[in-house]
């Protein structure tokens, strides 16, 4: 069975309609939701997500509102009768400004399972891992298939429940070709008992199918954000349906 961790940016295209995006992802069969809190300088994101973050900030996003959004989406998930863990993805600046422990605790309180923090590496972690243990949050460390073996080992030593593995060297949003070296990295984590979430540049059902046996879930980000961009002027129901359709098209027929 294929699983997808579907990414969305809260407050994109605006607060209300990003709820429609989340509902569309739930309808479309997402197994996990990655909710990105927009930051003004998202250096690890490609152009589509970066633009979405900028627009989200222009609508007046605040971190408090971000947690309200998570709360609302968690309630939509409960209503759907499905179990879809929410991971909050954001950058160090937002966490640090609120205080690491408070940020994580507020996220858990709002209904998030864990956090994805690309610019907080494991050896410059600002106390994130300890704080996560205290508040009952799961950190999903982020790495890349091109990382040195010693860097991968550093993450494996923590025996993380999940790991987010970027499939290419670069930033998000450019089409990815799978190769055997990439797959070997994924398998190392899988064999260590970590649930591997892999993505970056996934745009087609074929890619999802090719990854299926190597990962716990495939991450889809830019492709979905582009769908939202294409219907940024539409109403709630239209967006919800378009996002659901886009996601369904990525999931192999069952």
């Amino acid at each position, binding site marked *: 069975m294929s699983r997808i961790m579907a990414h969305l940016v809260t407050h994109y295209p605006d607060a209300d309609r990003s709820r429609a995006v989340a509902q569309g992802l739930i309808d479309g069969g997402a197994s996990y939701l990655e909710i990105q809190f927009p930051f003004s300088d998202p250096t690890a994101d490609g152009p589509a997500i970066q633009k979405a973050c900028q627009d989200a900030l222009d609508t007046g996003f605040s*971190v408090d509102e971000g947690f309200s959004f998570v709360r609302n989406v968690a309630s939509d998930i409960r209503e759907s009768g499905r179990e879809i863990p929410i991971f909050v993805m954001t950058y160090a600046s937002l966490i640090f400004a609120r205080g690491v422990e408070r940020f994580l605790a507020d996220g858990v309180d709002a209904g998030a399972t864990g956090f994805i923090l690309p610019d907080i590496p494991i050896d410059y972690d*600002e106390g994130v891992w300890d704080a996560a243990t205290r508040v009952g949050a799961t950190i999903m460390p982020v790495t890349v298939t091109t990382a040195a073996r010693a860097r991968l080992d550093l993450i494996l030593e923590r025996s993380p429940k999940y790991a987010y593995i970027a499939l290419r060297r670069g930033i998000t949003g450019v089409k990815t070709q799978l190769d055997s070296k990439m797959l070997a990295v994924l398998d190392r984590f899988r064999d260590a008992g970590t649930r591997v979430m892999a993505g970056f540049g996934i745009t087609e059902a074929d890619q999802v199918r090719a990854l299926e046996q190597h990962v716990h879930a495939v991450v889809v980000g830019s492709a979905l954000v582009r769908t939202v961009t294409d219907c940024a002027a539409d109403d709630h129901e239209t967006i919800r349906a378009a996002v659901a359709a886009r996601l369904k098209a990525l999931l192999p027929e069952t």
Partner: protein
Amino acid sequence: MTKRYNDYFGDFGGRYVAEVLRAPLDELEDAFLDAMDDPSFHDEFDEIASTFVGRPTPMLYAKNSSKEIGGAQIFVKLEGLANTGAHKINNAVGQILLAKRMGKRRIIAETGAGQHGVATAAVCAKMGFECTVYMGEIDITRQKPNVFWMELFGATVAPVGSGQKTLKDAVNEALRDWASSFADTHYIIGSALGPSPYPDMVREFQSVVGREARAQIEEMITARDLNLEALVACVGGGSNAIGFFEPFLETKAPRLIGVEAGGRGPEPGNHAARMKGLGRTGIVQGYKSLFLLDPDGQVQDTHSVSAGLDYPGIGPQLAALGVAGRIEFARATDSEALDALQFFAKNEGVVFALESAHGAAEAIRLARELPPTSAIVVNMSGRGDKDLFITAKQLDKERWQEFLAREAAE
């Protein structure tokens, strides 16, 4: 001498980057430390410094200005006489030599005022590297002449339309490029900031300014029986300041004063001053330091008449030394900088870059408070030629616009 590789400076610094950038940063750290211990690296740097950069740059005794002020004697390190017009070239030379050692063939850089971009494009032309310079669309508009020079040197100037469309956005774009290109590309960052080892490395390459200045000023104050009271430098990211101050960081005297952009005033969005309570500790663009952030941690807009100071973060070592008290910080507003620029132009026949003119403004202010037996050295990090279109518009608007209209009609 301060330690070459620190990573952290007190609470600030570090390497807060996505895992994808660890490989090139680790490689760079190794190459940097290796080069610093290799005499042939220093020989090559010195050779290029003297035959291409124009080192040593002169130290001017600003006699007329000092007399008019009637206080301390002002000396000006004419760093802006370096090839391409600013201190930026010292760092560009050092880093391109590292790129060569690492076997890279392509260089990327970000630029604000365009000075770092021009310096990088020039060294790429000289050393035979392909070069792409990221530059915010707003900076491209206000620093058009530098775009022309970069292209003349054969560089590609890539406009950045995201965010505030200025320096910080150009850094973001350069980091994005690097994340997918580091196999054959080196990123020459333009100031003493970013993830480690950049702050340490840029300081080392800029410390040539401080070493020269120390030797020059010692001779000049001894001859005049003066007491060296203070060194003054403008601070954008902080590369000219940290390089200028470097030989004095571990001594108690002289006073070291960094001057930030006071812009139009202290309200958020109107300035680029991060010290003295305006900045918050944060992690942005790979390093921990003081930044202009809103309470949520979003980076705030900044303003300065000088594009080179128009940046929300300060290099981690300067921030740490500011908190520790070794370096003092002051601010000069847009109009104070313009006044200082005119003052030194009239009295000394030198035109400060708008960035450096912030330091000049503080030097004038400080000289008034000190006795004539004191000496102050201000770093003219750049010369003002590049700012012609801004300065002329500010100081002689009508005639300048007439001229531009005539030129445009041709």
